[in-house]
């Protein structure tokens, strides 16, 4: 294929990952991801990897491991699992091991700037498309595939067709990126993006805060997408630069190498900053004008409102204004989708000076230790606790039914998470509604599903 034929982001990213000048849609490539993510499943993946008979994994420097899915360990078996992971990381020299309480994998790797624009990350977690927020190619894979990557450094991937979703205008007050994601999935179905690379474009996207941008690729996992993409801009680079500095300082690094260059960190700080910024920018990939899209969907921000996904699938979406009198026993604010500072701020704004309804519990779990510290400093935690919220250790919490906030059979939870499948939170007899942080907080105050406008 000649380089002059316009290409999608997925084509460019997978060509880079496969070390090829260009690739065609539908082509199967052997990709070498820059980062391979695993979490509490690392010990189980190790068990598979051992069947390859290797002493050492071939890509320790490309691995990132977080303990986040059941933290702090709720049972002895979970604790043994974590202990095995620590031993494995130690024996394999895996530096990027993040302890219990540091936070959820996607949030932590973003904060640590372990993934940069244009890179490919494959993770044994279905929400790995998350990294599209910073212009990376992120896709979820299985455990055998992750073990294969540890053993060989590469994995087959098919170059997907792309779908373009455009947003124009600014979101109305009280409407969030979560509402936009729910609207897309509600309109097009839980399989609407099946196997697609979903590219977000338009001034409405670039107007979103970084925390809001993170919601969109994250939620595209519920749309069936392989990966998702938002073009990185100056704000993205600033965020990653700050994270990079924090990490390199902690590691005591004197040099940073990536994208084929090495930068000495010992020189004049202003120059180092400029060089790092240029290095991050140099890796960014942008789809060409006129690239082939299988579908395009356009939304006007002004037409959106707060939505709720009703049990038991993410595409059962209705405006919150149409749900009346649904009682909730539990409201849960957190997860990789909506557990960031701006989410805690939105919830604090809603509950300030109010009390959580009796008969309802409000569980708040920040997505990371950094989010928790920032929220403490900003006073959001105090506001939430004063209203009657309960605070959990940064991590996934009850999102996938492991612990810390499991509903009883017959109970209803409204959650800022991404998935409301039957049984997701531990029992098939509980109902889960999904919404934005503001709607979750307003529902906690009202005891029934409500929008912030209903208070």
């Amino acid at each position, binding site marked *: 294929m000649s380089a002059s034929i316009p290409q999608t982001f997925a084509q460019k990213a997978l060509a880079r990952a496969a070390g090829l000048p260009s690739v065609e849609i539908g082509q*199967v490539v052997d990709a070498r991801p820059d980062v391979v993510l695993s979490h*509490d*499943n690392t010990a*189980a993946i190790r*068990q*598979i990897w051992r*069947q*390859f*008979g*290797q*002493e*050492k994994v*071939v890509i320790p420097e490309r691995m990132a491991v977080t303990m986040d*899915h*059941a933290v702090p360990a709720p*049972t002895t*078996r*979970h604790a043994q*699992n974590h202990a095995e992971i620590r031993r494995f990381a130690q024996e394999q020299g895996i530096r990027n091991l993040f302890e219990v309480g540091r936070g959820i994998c996607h949030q932590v790797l973003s904060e640590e700037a372990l993934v940069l624009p244009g890179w490919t990350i494959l*993770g*044994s*977690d*279905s929400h*790995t498309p998350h990294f599209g927020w910073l212009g990376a190619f992120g896709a*979820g*894979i*299985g*455990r*055998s*595939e992750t*073990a*294969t990557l540890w*053993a*060989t450094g590469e994995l*087959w991937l098919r170059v997907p067709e792309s779908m373009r979703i455009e947003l124009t205008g600014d979101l109305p007050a009280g409407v969030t990126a979560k509402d936009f994601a729910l609207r897309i999935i509600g309109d097009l179905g*839980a*399989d609407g993006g*099946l*196997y697609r690379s979903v590219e977000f474009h338009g001034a409405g996207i670039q107007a979103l805060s970084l925390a809001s941008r993170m919601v969109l690729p994250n939620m595209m996992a*519920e749309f*069936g997408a*392989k990966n998702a993409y938002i073009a990185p801009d100056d704000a993205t680079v600033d965020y990653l630069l700050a994270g990079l500095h924090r990490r390199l300082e902690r590691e005591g690094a004197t040099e940073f190498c990536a994208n084929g260059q090495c930068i000495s960190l010992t020189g004049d700080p202003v120059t180092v900053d400029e060089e790092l910024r240029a290095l991050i920018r140099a890796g960014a990939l942008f789809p060409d004008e006129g690239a082939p899209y299988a579908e395009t969907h356009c939304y006007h921000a002004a037409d959106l409102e707060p939505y709720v996904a009703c049990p038991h*699938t993410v*595409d059962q979406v209705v405006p919150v204004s149409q749900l009346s009198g649904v009682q909730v026993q539990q409201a849960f604010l957190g997860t990789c989708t909506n557990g960031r500072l701006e989410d805690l701020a939105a919830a604090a704004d809603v509950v300030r000076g109010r009390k959580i309804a009796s008969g309802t519990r409000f569980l708040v779990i920040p997505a990371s230790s950094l989010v928790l510290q920032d929220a403490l400093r900003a006073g959001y935690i105090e506001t939430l606790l004063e209203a009657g919220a309960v605070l959990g250790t940064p991590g996934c919490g009850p999102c*996938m*039914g*492991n612990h810390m906030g499991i509903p009883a059979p017959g109970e209803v939870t409204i959650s800022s998470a991404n*998935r409301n*499948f*039957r*049984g*997701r939170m*531990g029992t*098939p007899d509980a109902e889960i509604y999904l919404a934005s942080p503001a709607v979750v907080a307003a529902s906690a105050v009202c005891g029934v599903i409500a929008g912030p406008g209903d208070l």
Partner: protein
Amino acid sequence: MTQSGRAWKYGDNVNTDVIFPGKYTYTLRERDEIAAHALEDLDPTFVANVQPGDVIVAGINWGCGSSREQAATCLVYNGVGAVIAESISRIFYRNALNNGLLAIVCPEAARAIQPGDKVAIDLAASEIRFSAGTFRFPPFSPSIMGIVDAGGLVPYVQCKLAAQATAYGDGVR
């Protein structure tokens, strides 16, 4: 290669949480334990009655949700030979083939097959045959067939690594 078995039929958007509940994913590791919870929240009669070679037949987006590989292995450990669906989520699709479980997208067959039908899958001819007719599905690419023939990704990669070790004469890479 032809295999056959009875059909277990399910609907649209069957997700990994009902195929293999998330609460077990970090504690259960043994084959029998994993097999025992297959389809627990979807069809409690499944584990007691499934027979080796049986086939799962489903609507759109089978296996959506989590990347958990046990959603595929819990079926393999119960002897399920194939999943035939109108569409299959991409991670489930990979996990299935990577564990030697045939994942076949064939909307016509998925709609026509009824619960309990005896279904035969002929890989060489890319055909699904049962009482109501014969349906063709797109053949698997040679690279996927390589994995399926090896019995899954792990044995496939074991072979590849062994071949490399022989070629380079240096054992473990």
